[in-house]
């Protein structure tokens, strides 16, 4: 990848004159440009001078600020009302360990419901030779629902 001088100047402004802080691909291309282009070398020197100039800083003495803070009582802290913070409070609760148990409970409940509906019990002949369908029809609402013709007497 080749780099134009304009691009080099732009990256100098964006990342500064310390090439070690540049992203690797751009740094490699910049080093190739610097090896051949004297204008780029000069721009780098100027950028280093600018960086050094900007970075000059008088030390900040915050004693006055800290003294002023210490001299006054701190105001009361602002806490969110419970009804406004309940969504974030819920988010902070750790539900993760409970999920498998909740899922297992829901699965068992669903399975029980399905079994209750379709009645997978053995369809055997009754002890007195009755038709199993009639036994089921008498005892299980599921048979009423799923029997081929549960209420023949209802037909005209």
């Amino acid at each position, binding site marked *: 990848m080749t780099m134009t001088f304009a691009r080099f100047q732009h990256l100098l402004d964006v990342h500064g004159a310390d090439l070690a802080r540049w992203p690797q691909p751009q740094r490699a291309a910049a080093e190739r440009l610097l090896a051949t282009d004297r204008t780029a070398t000069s721009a780098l020197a100027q950028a280093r001078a600018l960086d050094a100039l*900007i970075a000059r800083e008088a030390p900040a003495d915050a004693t006055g*600020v800290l003294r002023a*803070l210490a001299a006054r009582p701190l105001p009361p*802290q*602002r806490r969110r009302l419970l009804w406004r913070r309940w969504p*974030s409070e819920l988010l902070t609760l750790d539900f993760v360990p409970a999920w498998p148990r909740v899922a297992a409970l829901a699965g068992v409940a669903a399975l029980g419901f399905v079994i209750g509906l379709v009645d997978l019990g053995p369809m055997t002949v009754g002890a007195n030779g009755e038709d199993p369908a009639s036994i089921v029809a008498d005892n299980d609402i599921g048979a009423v629902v799923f029997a081929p013709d549960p209420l023949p007497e209802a037909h005209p």
Partner: protein
Amino acid sequence: MDGASDEELMLRIATGDEPAFRVLARRYAPRALRLARRVMGSSADAEEIVQEALLRLWVNAPRWRPVASFRTWFYRVVINLCLNRKRRAPFLPIEEVSDPADPTPDAAAGMERREIDRALAAAVAELPERQRAAIALTYHEGLSNAETAAALGTSVSAVETLLVRAKRTLRQRLGPMLDVGSKQK
């Protein structure tokens, strides 16, 4: 407690721990003051803003969530206070910026140094405030462009634009000094 991280201190402050607040205030007051002074151009305004920022830190600590770094969040508070105040009051050129006691024995060198500092301060003072803030955060607080974007509440590409424009202006204003500086190197 002095060794605790910023985030740990904030969690303590959220429970009303005043000593933790004092530790964090001592840690950040000089940095915040430097930043505010760069953006505001006035030490008096900067001190008021840092006091206000630290009080807001205390008051709002129970609402703070450690989703981002404390440093970025706090710098954002400082920058917002600076920008709000500047909307209300016109910018005053820096009257005192960077006039530290010169350790060099050579008086001529000291004068030249102060002259350069004044020229830099004047050039920086002419930048729009967001450009000044971007320069202060990246150069003086050592933030990456991404962290600067978070502190300014903008995108990384917007920060890059701010830096490019700011440096272009500074190069134009400080051109002769930069030539001297680069030749000395």
